[in-house]
């Protein structure tokens, strides 16, 4: 039934003679467009970083490019590895994954603060951003919890439990502070419920509850003198503020980003003439505002190429969702879709001034090992779901023929 399953005789349902053919067939069952879209985005990222960071590290113009390339290579290895295993086995590890998610995000509170935020666990040669790895752990474990309650999907208690399981890590992550990732967790939970089949009534209630909570914390509370949060926290949260941790700079960041993207016009100003990028008017130009660099340097054409690649990625993910051999797979794809769409919408929206500034990285484009590797792990799971679905379908058709 699965490549992993086949190693344990109990689960073997196929004729052993069919094995070699299936083994060879796995490569063809890969979704090439999904991986191509991801590699296309990595290529865009490397080209953009090459221009934007060529003076960032004295004497080493390719510093960021080389590292981003290495991160992507590690990510692709994860894709190849994950696509060979049956994702369904992950269900057994749901408690472990959830525990790891909580543990990783609590451990960072013991780590040194970096510009006032604690998000990273330092290792001798690298550091990992635990909330990033939390995303994929949450998707895999939350989907598993929901599958376990598949028979009571429409119960209020199921919905409440799943939301609670997502809100706990979100509440841990938000004060790191990493509001953006906290919101990704909530979006993931909501989408997993949505795909799982929670009733419209409950979904509407959840959305309403969320709207009321946000309105109260940010608007009504302070207006009537109930300060749920301290003023600086409200300030930080107002309009989903950014965790760039310097609220005074918000309008500055947004203005400079708009100028950068706008001045790119149709075909961009080119690497040498992209003054917003070169002169560092754009903050964090290799991470959060990398899309603004694309916009300034390569214009509407460049931005459209990048967005099209995301569209391709999302279309392939939706297709895999419909193909999945079981509910667990569909839920995982739903979670990954939520993660990708949320990040693209919020990050690109932020750089073009239609979303508040939050420190959400643009998947595969923003410089950063944790984000790139986690995105590839998610894509690896998608490939695994795709291959498993194709194999199941092939097995069925074969059994029908024979």
């Amino acid at each position, binding site marked *: 039934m699965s490549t992993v399953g086949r190693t344990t005789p109990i689960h073997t349902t196929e004729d052993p003679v069919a094995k070699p053919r299936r083994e060879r067939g796995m490569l063809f069952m890969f979704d090439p467009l999904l991986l191509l879209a991801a590699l296309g985005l990595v290529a865009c990222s490397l080209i953009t970083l090459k221009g934007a960071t060529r003076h960032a590290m004295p004497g080493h113009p390719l510093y960021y490019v080389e590292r981003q390339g290495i991160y992507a290579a590690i990510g692709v290895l994860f894709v190849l590895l994950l696509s060979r295993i049956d994702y369904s086995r992950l269900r057994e590890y749901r408690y472990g994954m959830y525990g790891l998610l909580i543990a990783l995000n609590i451990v960072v509170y013991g780590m040194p603060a970096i510009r006032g935020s604690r998000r990273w666990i330092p290792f001798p040669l690298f550091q990992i951003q635990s909330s990033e790895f939390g995303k994929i752990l949450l998707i895999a474990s939350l989907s598993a919890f929901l599958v376990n309650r598949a028979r009571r999907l429409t119960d209020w208690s199921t919905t409440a439990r799943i939301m609670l399981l997502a809100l706990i890590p979100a509440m841990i992550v938000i004060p790191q502070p990493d509001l953006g990732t906290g919101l990704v967790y909530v979006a993931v939970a909501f989408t997993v419920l949505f795909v799982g089949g929670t009733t419209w009534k409950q979904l509407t209630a959840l959305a309403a509850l969320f709207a009321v909570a946000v309105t109260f914390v940010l608007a009504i509370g302070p207006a009537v003198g109930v300060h749920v949060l301290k003023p600086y926290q409200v300030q930080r949260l107002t309009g989903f503020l950014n965790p760039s941790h310097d609220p005074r700079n918000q309008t500055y960041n947004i203005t400079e980003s708009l100028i950068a993207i706008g001045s790119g016009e149709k075909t961009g100003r080119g690497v040498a003439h992209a003054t917003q990028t070169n002169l560092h008017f754009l903050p964090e130009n290799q991470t959060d505002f990398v899309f603004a660099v694309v916009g300034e340097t390569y214009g509407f054409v460049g931005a459209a190429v990048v*967005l099209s690649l995301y569209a391709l990625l999302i279309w392939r993910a939706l297709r895999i969702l419909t193909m999945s051999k079981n509910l667990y797979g569909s839920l995982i794809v739903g979670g990954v879709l939520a993660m990708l769409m949320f990040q693209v919408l919020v990050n690109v929206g932020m750089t073009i001034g239609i979303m508040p500034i939050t420190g959400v990285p643009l998947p595969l484009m923003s410089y950063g090992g944790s984000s790139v590797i986690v995105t590839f792990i998610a894509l690896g799971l998608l490939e695994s779901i795709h291959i498993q679905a194709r194999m199941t379908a092939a097995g069925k058709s074969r059994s029908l023929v024979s």
Partner: protein
Amino acid sequence: MIKLPEDRRLPMTPQLALRVAIIGSFALAMFAILFFRLWYLQVLSGNQYVKQASINRVRNVSIPAERGDILDRDGNLLVDSIPANAVQIVPSDLPKSGAARRHMYRRLAGVLNMSTKRQKCPIDGRGVHRLAPIPCAVAQEQAQLPYANVTVKTDAHQPVLWYLSERQAQYPGVEVHQVWLRQYPHTTLAAQLFGTVGRLTAAEVHQRRFRGASPNDVVGQSGLEWYYDRYLRGRDGADRVQVNALGQPSGELRARQPVKGHTLKLSLDLNLQKAGQTALQEAIDSNPPATAGAFVAMNPTNGEVYAMGSLPTFDPNIFAKPVSQSEYEKLNNASSGFPLFNRAIQSAYPTGSTFKGITSTAALQSGVWNLSDIYDDTGVYNNGVGDQRHNAGHASYGALDLVQAIKVSSDDFFYNLGRLLNSDSLKGGALQQWAHKFGIGRKTGVDLGGENPGILPSPQWRLDRDKLEKQCENGTGPYKGHGKHTSCGIADGRPWSVGDNENLAVGQGDLEATPLQLADAYSAIENGGTVVKPHVGLEIDSSDGTLLQKISPPASRHIKISPTYLAAIHEGLHEAASQSGGTSADVFAGWPQSRYPVYGKTGTAQHDNQADQSWYVCYVPDPNKPILVVVTVEQGGFGAAAAAPAARQILSQWFFGNRGKFIAGSSKTL
């Protein structure tokens, strides 16, 4: 096999199909919005943003200029610069809370592999604290230059610099900047001459010498770097861009290239300098307990310094990195012999019998002694007021005229001249007057800075010292608030006496002169009365080697000395170095005196409680390559034993290109 319900293939229910369609529509809407917004921003209103971008015009980042090189007279490289990346702390960007700052310092020390142990840390105006090296460096620099960056490390490995640059958020206030570091390929060679470079200090900002330098600039702080700073400094460049109204940069991103400083060519001769330091080291090593010394070799006609050295020495390359407190103390310590000290211009000593050339000139010019006068040296000298003195080893030289007295270095003869030249008038007599003309007791004006003027004892000087002693004992005047003392050891309170002048006549007593002063005085004796201004700088060249300016400072003054008298003194000096019975004749055994006649005078200065100091001054008036050499070896014994042999080696290197053997003389005169 029984399938678990959850594992069952999910049929594509209408409900799921609907929800997937909803997600798809949402994605479609999302991309539509993003595309539309981008179209609006970039295509419809791009013009307006281009204009705004062009207002974001200039960003300036200073690029430090490379300091000019320093070459010897033949163009050999003595000092140049290498680029390095310095880890610097910008105090104003440091975390405000003390705990966060200390935490950051600890992490930074870990990354840079520096100690976090608390050590003694003297801070200007705030006493001595106990701090780890990084906070100590910050505190010390802050006390002097509140707004300057503090360089913590200059030799960090590249991966460490990348690590820091990538994680600037984790190390607030820590920056990596490109800097130029001085490099000294010949390590200890002429180390004290070059001096040091450092950040412009608050006091220096308004000095004319440093006009045009900005507060974070590195300027010369001592030695040649200080004296010729305006030529060596160069002009910093700036990384910036000018954007025109169309939003296009009008120039390259680097608008102003840094301009390297000019090259300073010295009159030093690399080989002679090497030979001099080796010869001096040999003189020190072969005459225990000697540990220190100095030498000067110069052109007596124009003051060009060919070589100047001081031992013990040090390797100035250590100053390329921030120097730790313990290292610095090691360099400023009696046990290491104060290697930073340039003894050729900063240490003043009694010069012993080498002073007799000056005494002779004074005696002849003032008329107290004639060339035909004879003094009978019986080995004992009585000055008639109760003092009895004698030559070293109680030698008696019999009837002497001035020429012979110089040749054998009779102390009795010169005690007698000292008595004859004595005057109780406050300014002293002819000896003080002539010594002053020769430059004793005043700076030579050499282009190195930090010169010691020395002391020319006179009745007035003694009065001043006695007054100072009184003030010190009573705790008044400059010693106000220091309390009373029974004795300060500044002076013994006795008035000027004829004995003082007798001491001065033979270069003893309270006289203090630097080796360079002695060289300058003998230059005037050699060249007929011109007191030249010694200089180490020879030319200012542009960095590509074209001559910009010659350095030939005019002579300090001219002294009128009768040529007849000078000829007699020259004769005495030449006989001393060449004829049997001359004090340094055996040192020059085998020297081609007919080709390169040597004129030399030994000296042995006595100090309380320590071994005698060896001196030698000599010159060879070769028309093509005139040279004058002064060598002194602290605690080196007799002049002929330590200083003269080293001087011969220097002359040998100059004329024959090799040092030859170290030939110690046997003369035991003072």
